[in-house]
């Protein structure tokens, strides 16, 4: 059973291999994927109104880092989608991410199960909020 059927996810990462793996994982579960290789592109994507349900973003990226993206999403997008941060650094803690407005923080390397569950959790929360 495809767990993410009909869900539109914006995946942000500067590492093409990472993007490809994440796309594979989510598409396998039936999600609709948009990708961005940096924060700036991701923000433009959202501004064009791509109907994104969830954002999963890396933090350390040369073209606009994840935390800046998060800030911009929260300040410029109407009804912003939940943002899940996805990082290999230890410089941000879960509590800090929450404080900044992120929905969740995933630490690399996270396996596919963890990734999918995080998306489902975000969607459930988002639906409860809008209803």
């Amino acid at each position, binding site marked *: 059973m495809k767990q993410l059927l009909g869900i539109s996810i914006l995946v942000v990462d500067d590492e093409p291999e990472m993007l490809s793996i994440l796309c*594979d994982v989510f598409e396998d579960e039936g999600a609709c994927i948009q990708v961005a290789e940096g924060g700036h592109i991701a923000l433009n994507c959202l501004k064009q109104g791509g109907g994104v349900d969830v954002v999963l973003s*890396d933090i350390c990226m040369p073209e606009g880092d994840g935390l800046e993206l998060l800030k911009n999403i929260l300040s410029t997008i109407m009804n912003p989608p939940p943002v899940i941060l996805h990082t*290999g650094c230890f*410089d941000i803690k879960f509590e800090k991410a929450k404080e900044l407005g992120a929905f969740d923080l995933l630490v690399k*390397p996270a396996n596919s199960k963890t990734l999918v569950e995080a998306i489902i959790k975000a969607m459930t929360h988002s639906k409860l909020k809008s209803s």
Partner: protein
Amino acid sequence: MISEIKSLMDSLNIGIWSWNIASNEFYWDESMHKLYGFQANNFPDAYDAWLNIIHPDDKRRCEAEMTEFLAGKSDWDTRFRIIKPDGEIRHIVGKGSLSRGSDNSPLKISAINLDVSHAARVDAEKMTTAKKMATILEAVAAGLWESDLRAGTLELDDSLYRLYGLNRVDCPDAFEANRRAIHPEDYEKVMGGTMENILAGRSRFDIEFRVVHSDGSLRFLAVKITVERTKDGVPIKMFGVNHDVTELRYVEDQLRQTIAAIDSAAIVAHTDKTGIITYANDRFCEISGYSRSELIGSTHKIINSGHHPKEFFQKMWKMIGSGKTWYGEICNKRKNGTEYWMQTVITPIRNTSGEISIFLSMRIDITAAKNNQLALISTTNRMLEAQRVAQLGNITVDVNSQVEEMSEEVKHIFGFESGEACDREARLARIHPDDRQAYLSAKKEVIQNGAILEGEFRVVHPDETIRYALFRLKAAKGGDDRNIITGTIQDITARKEVELKLLRTQETLTTMLDTVPIGIGMTSPDGEIIGMNFQMLKMLGFETVTDARRAGILSIYQDHQDQQRLLGALIVDSSVKDAEVLFKRSNGSSFWGSLSATKKRQSDGRVVIIFSMIDLTERKRDEALLVQSCKMASLGEMAAGVAHEINTPLAIIVGKASRVNRLLIELKQDSEIITKEVTIINDTAMRIARIVKGLHSFARSGENDPLLETKVSDVMLHTLNLCQERFKAKNVSLLVEEDPDLVLHCRETQIIQVLLNLLNNAFYAVQTLSDKWIRLEVRDAGTNSLQFSVTDSGHGIPVSTAEKIMQPFFTTKPVGTGTGLGLSISRGIAEDHGGKLFLDSSSPNTRFILDLPLKGNYIKKDSVA
């Protein structure tokens, strides 16, 4: 009359005491009280109390004499000294006799005490007068009786009943009253004696007898009996006048004894108004060499030595002629021409009409003392002046007679005026109470064992100033082979004050030296240790300076050359500052210290080296810790920096691995072998991720983190992540025993640090062994604590090493391998958590235990700026 006698007794300083043995009544008259310096009725009338007043030197003898006396073996006839409550010493002559019952048992003791301190005050003539007066007392009628011899009746008056101690109502019959009252032994004498006298035709006769009162006391009664007869001599009536003569008998007895006492103690003479000798006692004859007949009838010119000028005697006569008593010292001449000195008291005695009838002189021989004194005077004058300047006096005491000679300066030292008496007791009273006992025992040593007394005693002057006196006394033989104590007494107050001041300064300095947290010492230029303060001794592990001296200066350096270097530097410069030197403790352990030294020439010309030492162990450790934490911090930064670089590729590996698995499923290529291999790739990647995370956490000091509830299993896991690969690589088997439920209140990274340190030490230790294993255990140790233990296959640590392993910088690892800080830091962490880290010496294998409280109770470490 009795009262007159009493007052006479008083003026004579005669006290009377008695002891009724049967009733155990002790009686002291007023004079006794006065004599002994007590208020009337204020003296505890008891034998022991009396003994306590007696001068310590006479006490034992008095006690023995009294025992003899009470046992009836002898009369009491003695002389002793007493110390009155005000400290005054008086000389007492005591005489007493014991009266006995028919069965020879002692009934009553009557005794007198006579103060002979100023024997001449005793007025012998007055006593003779008293005797005369006493006889008049007999006329004092007391009880009367009348007997009709024909009718056979007897009537007693009330006074007689009273004298008998009877009551008429109880005993109306007069004959019965006689029987009851008269002493059984005397009854026959009274009755028979009366009858005898009547039969002998006497009409007036006296009988004396005793009556016994119902309380057992005895009274002496004298009865004057008058017999009325018919013309032809037939007795018809008898009258009796009874009077109580008890007091009289008593007083008479005592007076007799008193006179004897004075006569035996002093040289007594009476002269008439013109100075002609009318009485001379034996002692007078003895000392003058004249017979009594030669003396009586002549004047005192017979013994005039010509020593005194005429004015001396004129003055004396003028004084006694006016009725006053004269005191003085007179030099007399014996019949054989030799001279003798008399301390003399002359008292004029008045007759009943108030005119001076005789002069009573009493004298005591003081020749011995006087001769010495005279012989010394001329040479002494110069000496005395010298002594005055030196504040040094000399004193000689005859041990037996207690006759003393001393120079004026002795008196000054004791604070007496020239004219004041300065006898033994007076001097003793001025010795500081705290020193008195020591002085007395030292003096006793001199007398008994011939020791030489050389000691300082404090003397308290009347104005309460305290002087320090140096006594130098020794026993010696005087002329005539007399035992004497002789020596000097010197006032050393001035010197003493300087000494004391110095001592106080020294004490202050010593206290200061011992309390400063800096080791301070002094050596001679060739390194002989002169002194070290407490702090330096403590630093170097010596008990005393003597220990340090024994060990020698070189022993305090790890490298002996350091002493030479120090001396060399002191030759070039006069001081060395803050040189860092590795010192060695007496137990062989070493520590870093900062050494400063100065060369100083002392006031006596000696050159000394004064050196100070500050223990740098703490500072060195802090420095090393700082280096260590800097290293750790940079490692942490690096770990954080590389984490992203590693984790992203790891995420790709993990992602790709799971992709491979999914592809296998999609392609229906169900290959178990490939799936297994992919799983290994995935797990390995995850492990790399954990190591990176662990490295990051470990590198943080965690010192300021709050203590958090932490799962012990997490602590164990995070620790093992950081080391188990290495152990595996070196073939060291790691056994882990844990309890998954345990939760600990701690700073996780710090505990990991401790465990990792223990594991690394164990790892290092077992490397050379054939059997290599390490066991990490954790268990609930009860009483709210938890124990981690790290055991390895090694066989314990030698005791000498075990003592030092917790010290900073101690390491058994080769240079460059270890910091020597691991265990000391670990112990610090354990203690910060309120726990402890120790070597379990009971284990056959090497085992360290980290004991931690489950909750709180930790010491918050001061945050270091």
